[in-house]
């Protein structure tokens, strides 16, 4: 069984202490339009505390727009998003930084700052820690994200694709956010590095108890680590576990989860399960 499946079926004392299973983020009736084109036509979504929720869908189905809406970067044309029962547009500054962490698709590391300075930036702006403490924390976050302290001196232009994602993840984790949004965390990476990132997400979710919302079209991520998946098609979201969605009658969802690539990802998952 995958790590995700284990946790789903046996809610442990670990999960109860964190209040897992309760909704942490709710989106109701989200409508987004660009000109005449309606991207979202009433999307309802609930993210439960402690879960890994995948958001999938074809190109142009509005995955990234939905993430921008959930994080409050874009106001929806209709509908509302609440995080911990508060409207997302009413959460500001340090509070927002402590609540959500975002890994952007290209990393969005500040190119004029070193990796360590990137990680320390939110700490410097939103906490009153001593310089030495900030450095220790930055080094810890880099380590948590699978980098080494010496990588902290490098600049974003000197990093490989996988390291950019890890460094951006370390920065997203800087203030121990309660929800982590990941936009295509494995895109543009070779399969080995990509599965390393997948494992890292599970590990952080498990050990830090951070809720993860991952926007992806990587079927290995969807089958391998997501507790539940929201599939966007025709402006609506269909949410469920992978098993539930595989029984869906919707032609697009069926094609998406039964196509040749999905079969390969599913086989990999079964092999993976067998080894455990």
């Amino acid at each position, binding site marked *: 069984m995958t790590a995700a499946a284990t946790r789903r079926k046996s809610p442990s004392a670990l*999960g109860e*202490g964190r209040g897992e299973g309760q909704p942490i983020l709710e989106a109701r009736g989200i409508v987004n339009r660009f000109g005449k084109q309606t991207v979202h036509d009433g999307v309802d979504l609930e993210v439960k505390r402690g879960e890994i929720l995948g958001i999938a869908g074809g190109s142009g189905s509005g995955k990234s727009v939905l993430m921008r809406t959930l994080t409050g970067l874009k106001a929806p044309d209709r509908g509302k998003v609440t995080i911990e029962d508060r409207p997302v547009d009413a959460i500001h500054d340090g509070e927002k930084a402590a609540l959500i962490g975002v890994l952007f698709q290209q990393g969005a590391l500040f190119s004029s700052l070193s990796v*360590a300075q990137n990680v320390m930036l939110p700490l410097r702006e939103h906490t009153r820690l001593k310089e030495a*403490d900030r450095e220790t*924390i930055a*080094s810890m*976050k880099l380590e948590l994200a699978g980098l080494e302290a010496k990588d902290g001196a490098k600049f974003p232009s000197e990093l490989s694709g996988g390291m950019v994602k890890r460094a951006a993840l370390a920065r997203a984790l800087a203030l*121990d956010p309660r929800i982590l949004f990941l936009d295509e965390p494995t895109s543009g990476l070779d399969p080995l590095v990509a599965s390393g990132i997948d494992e890292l997400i599970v590990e952080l979710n498990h050990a*830090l108890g951070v809720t993860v919302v991952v926007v992806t079209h990587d079927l290995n991520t969807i089958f391998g680590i997501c507790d539940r998946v929201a599939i966007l098609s025709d402006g609506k979201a269909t949410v469920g576990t992978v098993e539930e969605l595989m029984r869906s009658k919707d032609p697009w969802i069926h094609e998406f989860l039964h196509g040749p690539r999905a079969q390969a990802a599913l086989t990999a998952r079964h092999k993976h399960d067998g080894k455990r």
Partner: protein
Amino acid sequence: MRRATTGGSGAPAIAIREDGETLALEGALDVRTLTAAEDDLARRLGERKPRAIDLEKLSSLDTPGALLLCRLSGDKVKLTGARPDHQALLDLVCKLDLAPLPRHKPMPRWRQVLVQLGRSTHEAVLDGRDILVFLGRALSATAHVFAHPARLRPASISRQIADTGIDALPIIALMAIMIAVVIAYQSVVQLRPYGGEDFTINLVSVSVLREMGVLITSIMVAGRSGSAFTAEIGVMKAREEIDALHTMGLDAMEVLVVPRILGLVITLPLLTFFADAMGLFGGSMVTNWLLNVSPSQFFVRVHEAADHNDFLVGIIKAPVFALIIAVIGCMHGMRVTGSAESVGRETTRSVVKAIFLVIVLDAFFSIFFEKVGM
């Protein structure tokens, strides 16, 4: 029993109780309470030697807090009563092997200045060489195109003329008029005490025709079109479009650089002529207001004051400046590497260098024309 709390109302707080050999933490241990808790715990652990830190009443714990606890715990101090989720976090953080962030040794000031000076000089020399090389390649590509007229790209050249010339007309007109107004106004004020304010017309016509018309136009075009050349070619370079051209057997020099150079060499003299006309018009306006010289009288006086040499001196310089601006703009575009910020950096450099070279060349032209008696 002593109690210590930090944080105001509403803010998260941490309380530390001393209970025999145990320190009991109560409240939140996170980045907001970390500094206070760290100092307090260090002091208490220093004073006496408690055996255990009890975490049973800790309501929340984050990674920095866990790191602090990991550092305090060890052989002598045990962590007890942690909730399962806190224990998971402690296990994760404690097993990390943390190294300090690497530091750079700062260089002494005087050495920085020296290094910077050396580096800039070296770069200036390399830059000069690069400009000559690129100029040579551009001219050779242009000659090649003229030798095979079928390769001349009239559509591309005409687009460049429209972009760099026609679109620039309003701003060039405004600038030329304004500069002429400034020169005319200052001349009237300076010459009036000597009763020579009539010579304002000579000053305006000669300075606009010989220098100001072409200089203002070149500076405007360097800012407007030189930067556009760098940005356009730079973005193509960054997106591998130049490489795509090469794989299709097309020469970027011929496709991108030659039309821009030819377009600008055709456009800039025409723009200069336009600027000359607008400058004289601006001068005639000022003399009309201040000296009551009618525009028709003004232009009669212009004919007496300036001859065709003055006009030619201005116009001859225009294609040379155009060549410099286009070559610098295209060269910096080709220098762009993958990143978006290098497009911005090269664009800035291209504009600064083009304007600098235009003014330096203009000074040489002044000496040259004086020697040949024009």
